[in-house]
């Protein structure tokens, strides 16, 4: 494509965002909330700067060139800027639309595009992901090293500069994802019928979190359905510029869960929950799908929202443990959920919940970010690990599998003894459930 034409196309695509872009009053109150600004201290790596870049493309004042692409790529999509913004700028939405245009207008070299697509597909299909993880960990298994997967290769495929190093895992993953029972009855009187999203990453890397979720919900009086036919929620696709595919995935999940007739739809992964609560944005204004999506989203809950409410009338076993809590971005910023997970943990006798400094500062995992921007991801991870260590806690709890995996890997690399768990695993202990992922894995 010729340069001027490309520039015009960029302008047309981003001009659609003008109404939202002008909401930014350039006040800068979001700067210090932005992890990449706090690390790099530069306007072009801040929310305000990125919005300014998008706006100048929309106004035809600038081209979406390599330099601009770089600064947009460094954005984590963590949405901490939305929490800080007094003007209610929907940054996440701006970024998603801009990234969709970047992918669709083919702004990257072919091999990078293919690499991105490939990674997206692997991560969003449990079966392929399980196989990929199996082979990725094979060398460490054969060499009798601790379980690890080489993240650097992936980074290189993605065209990233730098290398996030090896990902340290808790154990060698099974070549097949562990699936959940389709229906688990409520223990005692049934209060709710909940549909559970099984997820893509969970069944491969954290089957125990899924199992704990089912046990806890069932013990608290929920009938748990895991409808078959459900698929990836589409979060990675939305965040990385594949809006159309995400819309297809949303339709499929909407149909499957609709058929399952549940009171609420429970999600134990912050990133998935946040996306599912915003499905409407994937469809054009005024379309019937948009309305359907809004009705679907109204039923979606993070697991902590449901459990915190139900725990209030429940007797819990003491769990002697010092725990600190890391706010996953897509819970704290994406879904504005901060108090529920903490309430859930504080309800447990014997458990001491200690504050984590910068608890809502992104850990750098951010979907596939740790592969696409390994340098920044590792910087943020080190910062997170230092903060965790400073609390003296034995366990760091966090409600998102990506964070759990990344933080756990960081802790292991630093030789820390702190364990990273999903809060629901701790609640599970207090309800006399099974062992946690920090101990030997429970198989189903």
């Amino acid at each position: 494509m010729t340069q001027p034409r490309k520039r015009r196309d960029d302008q047309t695509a981003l001009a659609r965002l003008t109404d939202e872009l002008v909401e930014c009053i350039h006040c800068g109150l979001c700067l210090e909330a932005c992890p990449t600004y706090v690390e790099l201290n530069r306007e072009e790596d801040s929310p305000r700067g990125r919005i300014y870049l998008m706006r100048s493309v929309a106004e035809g004042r600038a081209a979406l060139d390599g330099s601009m692409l770089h600064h947009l790529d460094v954005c984590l999509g963590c949405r901490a800027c939305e929490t800080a913004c007094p003007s209610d700028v929907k940054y996440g939405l701006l970024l998603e639309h801009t990234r969709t245009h970047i992918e669709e207008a083919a702004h990257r070299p072919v091999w990078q595009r293919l690499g991105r697509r490939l990674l997206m597909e692997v991560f969003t299909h449990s079966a392929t992901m399980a196989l990929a993880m199996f082979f990725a960990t094979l060398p460490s298994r054969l060499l009798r090293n601790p379980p690890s997967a080489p993240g650097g290769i992936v980074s290189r495929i993605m065209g990233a500069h730098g290398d996030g190093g090896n990902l340290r895992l808790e154990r060698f993953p099974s070549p097949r994802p562990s699936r959940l029972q389709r229906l688990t009855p409520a223990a005692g009187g049934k209060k709710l019928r909940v549909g559970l999203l099984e997820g893509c990453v969970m069944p491969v890397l954290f089957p125990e979190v899924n199992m704990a979720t089912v046990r806890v919900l069932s013990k608290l009086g929920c009938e748990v359905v895991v409808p078959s036919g459900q698929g990836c929620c589409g979060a990675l696709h939305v965040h990385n510029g594949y809006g159309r595919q995400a819309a297809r995935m949303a339709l499929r999940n909407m149909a499957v869960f609709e058929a399952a007739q549940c009171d609420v739809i429970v999600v134990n992964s912050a990133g998935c929950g946040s996306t599912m609560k915003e499905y409407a944005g994937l469809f054009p204004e005024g379309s019937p799908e948009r309305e359907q999506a809004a009705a679907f989203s109204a039923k979606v809950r993070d697991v902590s929202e449901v459990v915190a409410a139900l725990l209030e009338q429940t007797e819990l076993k003491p769990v002697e443990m010092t725990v600190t809590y890391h706010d996953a971005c897509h819970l704290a910023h994406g879904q504005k959920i901060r108090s529920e997970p903490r309430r859930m943990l504080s309800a447990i006798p014997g458990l001491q919940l200690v504050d984590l400094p910068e608890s809502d500062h992104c850990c750098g995992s951010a979907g596939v970010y740790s592969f696409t921007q390994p340098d920044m991801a590792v910087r943020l991870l080190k910062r997170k690990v230092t903060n965790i260590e400073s609390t003296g806690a034995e366990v760091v709890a966090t409600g998102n599998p990506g964070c759990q995996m990344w933080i756990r890997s960081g802790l292991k690399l630093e030789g820390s003894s702190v364990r990273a768990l999903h809060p629901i695993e701790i609640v599970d202990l207090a309800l006399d459930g099974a062992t946690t992922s920090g101990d030997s894995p429970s198989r189903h």
Partner: protein
Amino acid sequence: MDVDRKGSPSIMLPSADTRTAPGETASNTALVRDLAAIVGSENVCSTTAERMVYESDGFTMARRRPAAVVHPASTAEVQAIVRLAASRGIPFVARGAGTGLSGGAMAPPGGIIISLTRMRRILDIDLRNRRLTAEAGVVNLKVTQAVAAHGLHYAPDPSSQSACTLGGNVAENAGGPHTLKYGVTVNHLLGLKMVLPCGELLDIPGETEDNPGYDLPGLITGSEGTLGIVTEVTVRLTPLPQKTWTALAVFETITDATRCVSSIIAAGIIPAALELMDANVIQAVEAAFHFGLPLDAQAVLIIELDGLEAGLDELGARVRGICESHAVRELRIARDEAERTALWMCRKKAVGSLGRLAPSHCTQDCVIPRSALPEVLEKIGQIARDFDLRIANVFHAGDGNLHPIVLYDDRDEEQVQRVLECNAAIVRACVEAGGTITGEHGVGVEKLEFMPLIFSDADLATMDRVRAAFDAQGLCNPGKLLPGGGGCADLVLNKKAAV
């Protein structure tokens, strides 16, 4: 005060962009290379996209793209950069967080921006003497956070305190809601290090309270970056009050509220803060935060008292009495810290929430004698009717620091023109009432044309000479603060071209 222009129009200074847009000229490349030799290439912004985002600060009605942006990490690096610029005759400007509301941190023509944001270390905390030394890029709020555990805080609290830097605060002599009792930046600055426009270092240690000779920190505070580049400051730490009493007073008319303000001060009470929000603001804030503000009231006051526990409730009772004598409809006292925080959030995010009433807004910043509040507010109401525009008022009533906010739609060119004229009318009305043209946002480029309204030729010439004593070459933030300063006549906002 708060935010400024909502989604302001894309206004350009005459020919500013064309001058620097092509960017990668030969001299530019050489400049970038030499700057990189000082700070490392990763700390120089040179691409179009990178330079573009520094076109303006929080005042977006004027913009100019810098030739380069350089991010030093030490005073020595700042000196080297300034020496390089001085030797080549390249103008330069310091930039903190870019939250300024008068265009002060905009690049001079062909100039470079020296960004202080990497200099964000707190260097020394001296609890015994209640003093803290920090680099200029440290964010205001971080100072309070660093000492809060010791029962101390840094008193100047601009609404932008979560983002703005100490260097920017010094340059603008920033204040906030609590400056009524605690004073503005200049009252809390003990010492500083500043790189002079020739590259020499001015170092005023601030170890003792009283220094002989000229009060240079006093002169530098509020100089809007025209006398040099501040790299370190030593500030005073203030004990946190033992107890706080915060109330919301609801009034049927704005005049009742403003008279009440005068009476409180006249009674010899110095509240920690005394803020007013009018009906337009109440509506927007209520829509955003659901605090339970009465939608039919014409004005509310946020009154905060603080100090020793003993006697505070009695003082509160006196304030209640004064409010009652001014026909207060309701006086609600915050029961706990959570309620107090919620009330302050309404206030500090008030301007941001005005986006709910109109697509764009534009904040004025004038100070008038407190006693003139009722009359000037009425006048502003009249101006709004004359120009057929809606104006919201949220301001530091205790200081008489007004922030009339004009609501409009920046996509309508005719309206934009009206807004500019309306703003000028407001400034004139304030000056006529014995006031001045800016309280805390500074002159920058925004208020340049109004300087002759309050200063005589002799005043301005004296200021020009002070400036020249620091900056003989006229390279340090030229075209700001003083109308004639730096000889950059083209910096006066071209309002016709602006639309």
